[in-house]
């Protein structure tokens, strides 16, 4: 059996739900960020797989590049926010961060 489009789609579906599970169940802000990266990678696998099996359409690759750019910007800003939370609360458990002005 040859490797087709659905193989890659199933891999990305599993990776997406793993990331979603991490986002839902984790308390530590950095672990939530790791789950988010898994979700973005799953989306990227979908883009590249459809680009290949839709006749090597290069626009899927361009969309994947923009997803990677957004992931880099989001990781930088989110880690800056997490460092600020750590300075104020001495922990990064995001379910206990419930003050707007501490």
């Amino acid at each position, binding site marked *: 059996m040859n490797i087709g489009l659905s193989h890659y789609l199933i891999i990305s579906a599993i*990776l997406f739900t793993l990331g979603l*599970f991490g986002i*839902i169940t984790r308390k530590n802000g950095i672990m939530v960020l790791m789950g988010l*990266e898994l979700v973005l990678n799953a989306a990227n696998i979908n883009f590249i797989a459809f680009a290949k099996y839709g006749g*090597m359409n290069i626009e899927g690759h361009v969309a994947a590049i923009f997803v990677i750019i957004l992931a880099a910007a989001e990781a930088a800003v989110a880690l800056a926010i997490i460092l600020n939370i750590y300075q104020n609360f001495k922990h990064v458990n995001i379910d206990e961060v419930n003050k707007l002005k501490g």
Partner: protein
Amino acid sequence: MNLITIAFYFFAALTIVFGAIVVTTRNIMHAAFSLLFAFFGVAGLYVLLSADFIAITQIMVYIGGILVLIIFGVMLTTRITGVDIKSGTMGKLQMGMAAILTLVIAAGLIFVFISTKWYLAESKAVDATVNQIGNELLTNYLLAFEAASMLLLIAIVGAAFIARKNK
């Protein structure tokens, strides 16, 4: 079983197994290092999909940039010598409900992916995609390209502004 099939299953197993370790382990450093192998598996899948430029970008940006940033975040926000390195999770009930929810979503996604008749076209043989990607970025996607560069600049300045110490 040709070589492509074996390579696909190897990289798929690498991605899924280490992705599962990332979201289930309690040690946050183990999660960060498992994320490295998960990203590497995804890069291997990109190579199998004949996306050479995206695979190199994945390795350089995700593994060389975002993962290093995450490990810096781990080291700056947890007391390495203390007991605080573990990452807490919810109680048993919430874990079970989250597992059921994500399993339902996974089953739905896989059902949709398998049952849909996707548009398939005969894929042309390409030797390198860098040329075409560069052409697309500087013609059809020029506005989005410039907006992304502005976004990165603003994100750098904003991150440096947020993370600095208050005087």
